[in-house]
């Protein structure tokens, strides 16, 4: 397949393919981080995760509309504001859902799956009723479109770089929140021993709500960012759900680092296979490999040996 190309051409293609893999990696991390917190840390199987992402996307869409029509001068930078709004919108909805639904179900993880699936159906219909069944187009500022030419032959999409940067920022922020802040400490305390955490004066209900909201908020940011590369429609959230769960499970549900590692492994596998095989088969093979490895090593890539 490469016989007709010069080394420099091949070099640049592989460089670009490397970038494609990295972009996919960033997309996966963005998708999965929120769920890693909600599912991995709290044990809630949030099937509505995709719908929280799409909420972020719709918020971005609304922002783009409003800014375009009323304050066009700010159009170049609205995206940052939209992402922050998306975070808070999804987080607020998350907190509401936690209060109304999830907090009753912490002891029945499989039931959270059913309840959140129901929630996802309702959210989809809500989006359809509010925004219409058609996909909406989010207008982006020009500087986000197009690509940077690194050399004559290597071009890197700007939105890809943006997603990569965003992922880095969010991953670092999550690290500090979960491992270097009081809130993170409380969260981990509640996760490990709810009763004890309550006994030492942690308001476990508030911690639960905040943690769930944080996970949803990150989903919102992810959704906002994905308006750059994907579609925004009532059912678009469904596209992400299987991949996202597999990433988190593959990484070892309880480990945030595992989620990042598994994002990396799966994204590289998928992007390499996509390059050498046809699209559908690449997807099937990637999923099969992941499922196969999970069958052999159910605890995922990263797991703690715990004394029972």
């Amino acid at each position: 397949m490469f016989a007709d190309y010069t080394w420099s051409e091949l070099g640049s293609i592989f460089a670009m393919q490397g970038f494609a893999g990295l972009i996919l990696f960033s997309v996966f991390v963005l998708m999965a981080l929120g769920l890693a917190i909600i599912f991995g840390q709290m044990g809630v199987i949030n099937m509505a995760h995709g719908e929280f992402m799409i909420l972020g996307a719709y918020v971005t869409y609304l922002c783009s509309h409003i800014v375009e029509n009323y304050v066009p001068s700010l159009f170049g930078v609205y995206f940052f504001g939209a992402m922050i709004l998306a975070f808070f919108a999804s987080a607020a909805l998350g907190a509401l859902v936690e209060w109304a639904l999830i907090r009753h179900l912490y002891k029945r993880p499989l039931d959270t799956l059913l309840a959140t699936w129901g929630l996802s159906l309702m959210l989809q219909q809500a989006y359809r009723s509010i925004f219409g069944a058609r996909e909406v187009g989010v207008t982006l500022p020009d500087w986000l479109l197009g690509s940077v030419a690194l050399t004559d032959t290597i071009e890197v999409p700007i939105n890809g770089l943006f997603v990569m940067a965003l992922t880095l920022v969010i991953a670092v922020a999550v690290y500090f929140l979960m491992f270097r802040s009081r809130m993170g400490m409380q969260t981990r305390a509640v996760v490990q021993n709810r009763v004890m955490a309550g006994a030492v004066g942690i308001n476990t209900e508030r911690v639960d709500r905040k943690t769930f909201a944080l996970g949803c908020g990150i989903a919102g940011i992810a959704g906002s960012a994905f308006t750059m590369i994907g579609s925004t429609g009532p059912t678009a959230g469904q596209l992400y759900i299987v991949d996202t769960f597999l990433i988190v499970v593959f990484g070892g549900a309880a480990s945030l680092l595992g989620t990042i590692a598994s994002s990396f492994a799966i994204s590289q596998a998928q992007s390499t296979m996509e390059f050498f095989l046809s699209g559908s088969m690449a997807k099937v093979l990637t999923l099969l490999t992941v499922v196969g490895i999970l069958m052999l090593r159910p605890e995922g890539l990263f797991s703690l040996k715990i004394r029972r």
Partner: protein
Amino acid sequence: MTNNGRKTGLGSTRRGVILGAATAVALTAFSQFGVGKAHADDANTTGLAVTADTVKVGILHSVTGTMAISETGSVQAEKLAIEQINAMGGVLGRKIEFVQEDGASDWPTFAEKAKKLLVQDKVAAVFGCWTSASRKAVLPVFEQYNGMLYYPTFYEGLEESPNVIYTGQEATQQILAGIDWVVKEKGAKSFYLLGSDYIWPRTSNKIARKHIEKLGLSVVGEEYYPLGHTQFNSVINKIKLKKPDVIYAIVVGGSNVAFYKQLKAAGIDMTKEKPVLMTISVTEDEILGIGGENIAGAYATMKYFQSLDNDNNKAFVEAFKAKYGDEIVIGDVTQAAYLGPWLWKAAVEKAGSFDIDKIKAASPGIELTTAPEGYVKIHENHHLWSKTRVGHAKADGQYEVVYETKDLMEPNPFPEGYQ
């Protein structure tokens, strides 16, 4: 559908509706005064829901589920056509009443609802379905209960049923002229075929490949991605590696949006001379989701564009916007759906009857001079003769028509040499 089904379908009797016939006749026998009105019992010998003043038809599309996005336009067009026909005095002096059912993007539901429309509502015709899968699911129902389906979507062909009028183009009509055009006008030598992974893109690309190879040109890549796939960076790199003259893309649904956004972001500039992006799956409807700026410069081949410059179309667009708002856009399928009720009306009037078998017999040869796309005619094989056009996407979400075939393209659902 196999050939056998077609043959037997023609002769089959209307099982399950005979009972209703007597009632319908009795009901209508009392009211036969209108001058020039065909007698109800003449016009309808098979117990359809036809009275002296009304005739019932069905609309069967997905209003909910993933396909609702695509099918909304068709429902709107069909309702508009019915409204206009009624305003003109109806069909054989009868006002059209419609029963709308939701296929809910679920194929057995389509079959179930089709059966309900035929058996319970006894509709005289059904305008509906969008995906091939839903059509395949309802087809046996229409053949068994001898109903009439007007199907609006451009599709892969390989089917021909006496109970269906295909108002959209089949694959060869849509594809061949476009490829000829891009070869002639853009000097294209090499093609990269890409599609969502299901029957329509695969069959269409197969036809495209055969045609390209017949012309002595080369296909440098062919790939399919699962429906709903959103990551196209790898295939875009492959395209860059192969440097085709034409990217021939039949990506649908949510994948569409992702594909064009990522294509643009990867620095493939469709407004430049090469590569040319040619698609048969992006109508004005889809551009709404993709964003005009992301697809500007691409070429689409289909039979209808909203911007088509003729009086029929101007009136159609105006009426459509008057009914559904200025923001609305009209795509190829929407226009084809609009033809359905008109073609049915013409067939009924030609047959002088609502009888399904008479309509089937009368349909071939029916012409429509008032179609927004221009003149169309029903072929022996129940598809439409129609022109194929090439549109050039603009940033405002509309296509500029840059080419149209001189003659009507003959529908050829079982193309020799392309299978």
